[in-house]
């Protein structure tokens, strides 16, 4: 169905090719998963499938890409629209119309499908993706999962043989991600659609994949294989695979269900060993909210939240999209004004403190990391950050090198991949080393390597007496780093407690290791490894 034949892509002005000598095939009706580090060329590979690279992006493509027998050199993206459906990283950015139903019909209108066929297909797609009850809603009023499903539906109505998705679940909460993956699963199984998808959250998707395409980046060759085989040696692997490797299971389980079956003896060996957890050494109170009520227009985002965060804690803020997580973080840096109640950050009132003084007390990495970046090159940005925070020159660059080692000094911040840009924004804010550090969705678009480095840095900061609050959907990250978890729902604090007690018991928030080893209280592979050492 899709055939890459010795494909090399070089963008205009780049010295190195973005993809080098890529050859692989994806047969009809398979779900192929594209994995690789941040910025390794996954998006380029996906966009080459429907001809956006090189027709839209510029640059040169050597070799040949065949999709359903059509050569992308001869067909423009618009002429491939009936064969390839494309869903970009941010579904909102790709919407052309303003209601769900019109959006679903848009590509068919462009392709000139007869009105009665259009009518039928829209109804079928609404049912297939469970969108029937939001058909008349404005796209801006939809939740994240609904938007993503609408984008998939819009690509599907023209009945393409191939569906290409770029990180479809990375911005979604666990429940919404499951909705989207279930929809994709139906497409592959029932409609024989070939799906190619790039995703960092392997723990969510690896079990559905029929084939893995690994894009290592740099000069290493792109390779393909079966998921179970690839996972034995892959440098990036979800917790379920790492646990399997640790326990020496063969064949390697990819889903929680398979792993649970294999884990009977492991559970027996771990039965009388409790996981070692370092208790957070908590110090002075660094953040406090009392009866915080915040609203935008007629919507109340927070309804009376009271909390206190102490130095040395790493607090994870969880909850559905739109539960009020970002609002809470913004209140702590004084971006939003509360209707009633107070918020204090590191002893200062964020609303009344001058920004230059406030950044020494509290730092926030916003959801859109690009908002923080102004300079024309990475080097300038780092220098400006050192000046802003009055730090010795080079301290920001050193942090960036630790987070993302291969970011080029001369790149424009906007040309970085999403993950690299996040690393840069993180480095800028971390550079000031404020006592209270707030991170809004820091793991979006990050690969496992970058996440691991982020975890190390956060742990270090906590040990050095900083307090860290991160809002996230990434349960594995929470299990690794958080000492305390707060769950928000509809603007209210619904649970507040130690990580193990809050997330292990919840069906949505439990990490894979906890699901596999339940009822034992383990959360991460690291905990299991140390417990096994102590047992033997």
């Amino acid at each position: 169905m899709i055939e890459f034949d010795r494909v090399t892509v070089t963008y205009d002005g780049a010295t190195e090719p973005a993809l080098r000598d890529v050859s692989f095939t994806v047969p009809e009706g398979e779900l192929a998963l594209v994995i690789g580090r941040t910025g390794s060329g996954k998006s380029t590979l996906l966009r080459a499938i429907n001809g956006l690279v090189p027709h839209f992006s510029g640059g040169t493509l050597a070799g040949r890409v065949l999709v359903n027998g059509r050569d992308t050199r001869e067909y423009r993206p618009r002429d491939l629209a009936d064969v390839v459906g494309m869903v970009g990283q941010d579904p909102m950015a790709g919407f052309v119309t303003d209601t769900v139903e019109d959006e679903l019909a848009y590509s068919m209108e462009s392709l000139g499908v007869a009105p009665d066929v259009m009518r039928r297909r829209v109804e079928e797609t609404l049912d297939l993706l469970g969108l029937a009850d939001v058909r008349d809603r404005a796209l801006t009023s939809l939740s994240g999962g609904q938007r993503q499903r609408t984008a998939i539906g819009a690509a599907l109505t023209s009945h393409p043989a191939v569906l290409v998705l770029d990180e479809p679940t990375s911005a979604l909460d666990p429940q919404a991600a499951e909705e989207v993956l279930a929809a994709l699963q139906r497409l592959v199984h029932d409609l024989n659609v070939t799906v190619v998808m790039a995703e960092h959250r392997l723990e969510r998707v690896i079990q559905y994949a029929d084939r893995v395409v690994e894009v290592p980046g740099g000069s290493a060759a792109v390779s393909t294989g079966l998921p179970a085989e690839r996972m034995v040696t892959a440098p990036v692997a979800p917790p379920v695979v790492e646990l399997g490797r640790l326990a020496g299971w063969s064949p390697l389980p990819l889903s929680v269900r398979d792993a649970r079956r294999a884990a009977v003896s492991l559970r027996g060996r771990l039965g009388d060993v409790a996981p070692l957890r370092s208790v957070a050494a908590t110090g002075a109170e660094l953040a406090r909210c009392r009866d915080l009520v915040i609203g935008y227009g007629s919507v109340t985002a927070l309804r009376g939240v009271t909390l206190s965060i102490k130095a040395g804690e790493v607090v994870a803020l969880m909850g559905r999209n739109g539960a009020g997580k970002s609002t809470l973080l913004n209140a702590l840096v004084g971006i939003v004004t509360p209707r009633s109640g107070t918020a204090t950050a590191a002893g200062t009132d964020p609303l009344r403190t001058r920004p230059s003084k406030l950044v020494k007390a509290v730092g926030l990495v916003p959801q859109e990391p690009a908002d923080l970046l102004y300079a024309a090159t990475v080097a300038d940005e780092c220098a400006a950050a050192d000046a802003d925070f009055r730090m010795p020159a080079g301290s920001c660059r050193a942090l960036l090198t630790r987070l993302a080692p291969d970011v080029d000094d001369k790149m424009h911040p906007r040309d970085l991949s999403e993950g690299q840009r996040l690393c840069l924004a993180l480095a800028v804010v971390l550079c000031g080393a404020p006592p209270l550090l707030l991170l809004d969705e820091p793991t979006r678009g990050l690969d496992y390597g970058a996440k691991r480095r982020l975890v190390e840095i956060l742990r270090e900061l906590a040990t050095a007496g900083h307090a860290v609050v991160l809002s996230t959907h990434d349960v594995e990250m929470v299990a690794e780093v958080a000492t305390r978890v707060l769950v928000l729902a509809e603007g209210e604090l619904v649970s507040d407690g130690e990580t193990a007690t809050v997330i292990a018991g919840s069906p949505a928030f439990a990490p894979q290791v906890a699901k596999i080893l339940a009822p034992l209280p383990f959360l991460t592979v690291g905990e299991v490894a140390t417990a096994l050492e102590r047992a033997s």
Partner: protein
Amino acid sequence: MWALGMAVAASRTRNPVLLVLILAVTGFVVSARRSDAPWAHSYAAFLKLGLVVIGVRVVLQALLSTRSQGNIVLFTLPEIPLPDWANGVKLGGEVTLEALLTALYDGLQLAVMLCCIGAANALASPRRLLKSLPGALYEMGVACVVALTFAPQLVTDARRIRAARRLRGRTRGSFRTTAMPVLEGALDRSVELAAAMDSRGYGRTAQVPRRQRRITGVCVLLGLLGILLGVYALLTDSMAFPLATTALAIGLLLAVGAMAIGRQRVTRTRYRPDPWALPEWLVVGSGALAAGSMITAAALGIEGLVLAGPLVVPPVPLLPVVGILLGLAPAVVAPPLQARRRELVAA
């Protein structure tokens, strides 16, 4: 199209009674038929703009009035002597009732035309307008609508970026730290949207010989030119009536022909197009009748469209009044709200 008719009607008269009547008619239709969408409040905004126009007109007239018209002096402002090069312009001085009234009526005419545009805005959404565009113009239309929807997005972006500046510890923003990120963000978004539209088949065209494409282009240009000429002539009496109508007719014919030829290149179809049935025809017809009655009245030289003098009590001519009242029809015949009105979209 209905609103256009009413605006044409307004441009043909300076009779305050008729103008106020047109205003009342558009106001009534808007309040009867608007939805609760964000653009539905634009009628009030245009009404305010109209009031400002009248005010400015009257004040300027009072300040700059030359004593050329009328002799009933209302009050006298202190006169400021101007240098010689400003000969003929007078600042201050005596203000006559006639001059003020003329200014008021002129201002009113402009204000009523503005309100007609406001009515069109209040009753139609830009995206629905797009749906009723002829196929040949569709691609241009999409570009315009996308551009329109970007404006509110820019405001949101600017607000977010201003907030983010706090996080870098900066109090004052420069062009570099505010406008640049906003513009870069907008550019990124448009590139992404363009990629999405391209990969969804936007701009697929059927093969058409080159010569035919050229003919289409020339036809469109000539047609538009003809229409412009005709409309201008009709509204200003600067050309003989038959000549103006002929220019308009030829222009319309050419443009329609070009659209029809252009349509062959476009392979797209429409999803659930809005019906164009009797009510829609009635609505457009009522607007056209209102305009038509005014133009005929002007052509026949019926008394009362243009006042003999500013101080005459305005007469009420029968034909134009009936014509304007016909403009009320949409309030009754337009399809009900839930059927998504679009008859006024064409306005």
